[in-house]
């Protein structure tokens, strides 16, 4: 891919680290790149950024509403502003600022939700963001993105910096291997990436759940001769409905996978499109159910809810066995 930041499969990094390295690379060339943090430069991997470009980082302290309001003001004055805060606080505490000061006022802030989903798994529900897709999808003029791997992350940050569009991007802390090393498999907001092609069913996954979906697809092929398509639907909104339509026609079942509540996220976004367009094949939403969320590491929580190689393979087999 010729990328200065992203290395090969073996050099997998956390998307969060790739975000900060990419932002630093951009800041070097453009002094209008600004990171705004809420005592979050450590968790946002921005300590080196702050040391190298102290004039391009604005520390707000622990005050997320103000973080977003200030970021909107900076962006309105021409700064390419990245507001960086744990996804759980950014998208709940500052929801009104996101809605009004960023989206409604059309101030081109890039909202960066760090340690998203259940990255802070053992810290409990206060630190989980399982509502962000649902809340932000309902806000007009906001692009919502969950990059899956280091390549998608780097491309997303570069393209976001060059865009005037208000956006929310969320990342986790886990090392994410590249989904593909095909240089022709490019990244563009609003265009899902086909990682694997198969005729039997499709996993439409997003963020850090694409990797287990890909592993499940490999297991299904190896052990059951079931061929699965795997899509990285990195952009939750606007949804790539063209690709969704294509997948609906080409496969016999769809399983959506996300590190988010089963309510209001990728799954329901796909479901509403498909229902409105006459889809009547098998369909399953995999995510975090509406319950008091189990705690543990991200991997343990994923395993608990079936967001794993084995879990997703089992869900796929059961779905294919189901009467239509």
């Amino acid at each position, binding site marked *: 891919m010729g990328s200065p930041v992203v290395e090969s499969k073996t050099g997998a990094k956390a998307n969060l680290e790739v975000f900060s390295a990419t932002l630093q690379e951009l800041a070097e060339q453009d002094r209008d790149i600004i990171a705004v943090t809420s005592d979050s430069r450590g968790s946002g991997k921005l300590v080196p950024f702050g040391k190298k470009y102290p004039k391009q980082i604005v520390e707000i302290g622990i005050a997320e509403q103000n973080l977003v309001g200030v970021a909107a003001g*900076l962006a309105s004055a021409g700064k390419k502003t990245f507001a960086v805060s744990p996804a759980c606080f950014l998208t709940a505490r500052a929801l009104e600022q996101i809605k009004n000061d960023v989206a409604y006022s059309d101030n081109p802030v890039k909202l960066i939700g760090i340690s998203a989903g259940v990255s802070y798994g053992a810290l409990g529900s206060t630190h989980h963001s399982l509502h962000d897709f649902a809340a932000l999808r309902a806000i007009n003029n906001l692009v919502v993105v969950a990059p899956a791997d280091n390549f998608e992350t780097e491309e997303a940050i570069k393209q976001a910096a060059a865009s005037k569009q208000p956006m929310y991007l969320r990342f986790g802390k886990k090392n994410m291997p590249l989904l593909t090393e095909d240089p022709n498999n490019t990244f563009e907001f609003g265009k899902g990436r086909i990682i694997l092609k198969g005729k039997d069913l499709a996993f439409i996954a997003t963020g850090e759940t694409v990797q287990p979906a890909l592993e499940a697809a490999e297991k299904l092929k190896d052990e059951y001769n079931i061929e699965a398509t795997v899509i990285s639907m990195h952009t939750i909104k606007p949804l790539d409905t063209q690709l969704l339509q294509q997948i609906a026609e080409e496969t016999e079942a769809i399983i959506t996978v996300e590190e988010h509540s089963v309510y209001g996220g990728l799954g329901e976004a796909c479901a509403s499109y498909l229902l409105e367009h006459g889809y009547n094949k098998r369909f399953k939403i995999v995510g975090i159910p509406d319950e008091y969320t189990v705690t543990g590491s991200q991997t343990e929580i994923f395993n608990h809810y079936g967001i794993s190689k084995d879990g997703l393979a089992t869900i796929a087999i059961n779905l294919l066995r189901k009467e239509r």
Partner: protein
Amino acid sequence: MTEKELAQKSNQYRQRILKYIVGANAGHTGGSLSCIDILNVLYNQVLNVSPQNFTSPDRDRYIQSKGHCVEALFVVLADKGFFPEEDLNTLCRYKSHYIGHPTRKVHGVEQNTGALGHGLPISVGTALAAKMDEKDYRVFTLLGDGELPEGSNWEAALTAAHYGLDNLCAIIDKNSLQITGPTSDVCNTDPIDEKFASFGWAVKHVDGHDLQALKDSFASLPLEKGKPSVIIAHTVKGKGISFMENQLSWHHGVPSQEQYQLAIEELNQAII
């Protein structure tokens, strides 16, 4: 502009506020009348902003945090030539951009406001950008005293002082009444001056209807080098119309035709 001409502007603006509120059958009458003298002085004496320079990165910024008093802002923007005044005949009508709060769909409006406690954080960010770019523009934001309990104001007050934003001026339209009753009864925010001072701001009190005093206050900005400034403007809700002054019912009361005529008569008589 002479002192008399400036006073006449305030009078005209009051007449227009009432005209368009009556036309729309909606609006925040009392608060628009309490802040109009502040807006008059800002737009006619202080701000380096005009329809011609509105896209210039060097223009001064005015961000109205108390967005519900949009009628005051609209009549001033119309007078400054941002749009034809007759556009305001569509105020609050179906599909009109002239809605009950400021939006950037209207030429001259800097930010979409309406939810309270938003103007100050945005203004802090804008003032911070000016400092980063070493630009001379200033940022003014108007807050109602009733919106001060919003915590985001105090978060932003800390940040403004932390970064020494002496290019930022917050004006509190202290009319001491809000929709439920006297601000001191609803959630007492006094002493506002001591609160802001303890947050690291330079503070000045002014009679918010004394045009010369307002001019002088703005001329003395920054009140203190290296500190953000807050001007606490003591105002009267419904100012200028005797039967509206300090009356809670005029928070968003709309005058009847008869009341409107009485109000216009009173304003006409007040022109020297």
